[in-house]
């Protein structure tokens, strides 16, 4: 288990200096439009732009190597399963059939290749932006950003508590797991299915019962400090918007409009080069 899962790394590029709010808005808007659009030109454009941002934020390859590899493996597996289950899905979506190879059920069509290319790009398009978001945004600032985009401060605070307690819960889990293994509970691959379920429960029970106590203690402390008394709440890590923040939001809106415009000329979500 890696204890710094969010990988925040302090630095001073313009991407780091943007407030969490504008980065979060940018991420949400761009990932929604990239999720809806199936236009390969638009998605490639967004992918190039987000790669430029990734480069500009001076993130080192060693920081993202592992996650990028996992994402690539996951994307490849998914593309292969899509092909195995539905080699004719492309032809169905685009309404034509240009056959490259006759292989019976697995007949390869240009439409299928094109559809899977779109799918691959869609899996990858938001990856650079979310890596930038994870690595350049201070987790403590994240909850104030959530509050600023309209999530109620109670929920934002709950997220902030979650981020704060993930390392604690991880540590507890590791400690309990080692203690239970020392007592002889089988958790490794050697155990049978039911023994492993039992083993996991033997860790979960103390972990969860102690966490319930934690919930009690924390909520009492917060009530003593009158959390939730007022309609609003200020955030220690909140920052003022600068010129670049407004520019980021304008850029996000422009990308969304561009995506909508592409959908208008395509007459739908799909760009069809086979017509």
């Amino acid at each position: 288990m890696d204890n710094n899962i969010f990988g925040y790394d302090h630095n001073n590029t313009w991407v780091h200096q943007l407030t969490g709010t504008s980065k979060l808005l940018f991420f949400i808007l761009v990932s929604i439009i990239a999720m809806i659009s199936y236009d390969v030109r638009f998605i490639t454009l967004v992918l190039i732009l987000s790669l430029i941002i990734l480069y500009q934020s001076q993130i080192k390859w060693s920081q993202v190597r592992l996650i990028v590899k996992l994402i690539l493996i996951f994307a490849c597996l998914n593309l292969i399963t899509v092909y195995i289950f539905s080699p004719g899905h492309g032809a169905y979506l685009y309404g034509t059939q240009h056959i490259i190879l006759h292989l019976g059920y697995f007949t390869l069509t240009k439409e299928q290749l094109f559809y899977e290319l779109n799918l691959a790009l869609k899996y990858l398009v938001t990856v650079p932006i979310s890596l930038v978001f994870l690595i350049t945004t201070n987790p403590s600032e994240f909850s104030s950003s959530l509050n600023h985009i309209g999530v109620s401060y109670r929920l934002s605070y709950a997220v902030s508590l979650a981020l704060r307690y993930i390392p604690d819960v991880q540590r507890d889990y590791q400690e309990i797991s080692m203690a239970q293994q020392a007592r002889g509970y089988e958790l490794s691959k050697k155990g049978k299915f039911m023994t492993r379920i039992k083993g996991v429960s033997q860790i979960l029970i103390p972990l969860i019962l102690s966490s319930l106590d934690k919930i009690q203690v924390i909520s009492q402390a917060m009530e003593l400090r009158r959390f939730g008394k007022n309609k609003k709440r200020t955030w220690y890590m909140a920052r003022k918007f600068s010129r670049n923040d407004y520019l980021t939001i304008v850029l996000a809106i422009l990308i969304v409009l561009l995506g909508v415009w592409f959908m208008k000329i395509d007459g739908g979500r799909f760009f069809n080069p086979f017509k």
Partner: protein
Amino acid sequence: MNKKKLSVQSVVAIGIGTAILFLLKRWVSIPTGIPNTNIDTSYGFLGFIAVLFGPVVGFFVGFFGHALSDFTQFGAPWWTWVFTTGLVGFALGFLKKYMKPEEGRFGKKKLIIYNIYQVIINVIGWLLIAPTGDVLIYSEPANKVYLQGIVSAISNSLSTGIIGTILLVVYASSKVKKGSLKKE
């Protein structure tokens, strides 16, 4: 206090619950022996926390926990499945009123009802809502996502059933049974 607002306890329960769900989703899954199919232990925990704290906490624990784990693993949350996890937590939360976990030991009847209900909810969620969302939003081929749906419906019901029941029983037996104390 205004009923619409979350109580302080719910806020904290969502926070800590999300942290635990995230941990379980990322690292604690049990292989079933069939390749690429794991029992995701987080659904057992989701069932437990939802029954303990109710639908609102259940929804947000599922939603935030799943979203965070997807976000840090794949770079982008798979929204349809994240949302379904939230809905499953929400639906299971309605059992709180019936189960009354704070009143001590469950009878067999309550545990059977819990298990029947959770299987129904998991089937609706993973066989109906999540794959249909994939077809509509992500335009994935239907037979692939419905097969994934069947597999997750089974494995998630097993997790919610076995691990959820164990946790509930242990929790309830740690509470003093209602009416077990008499004035002398």
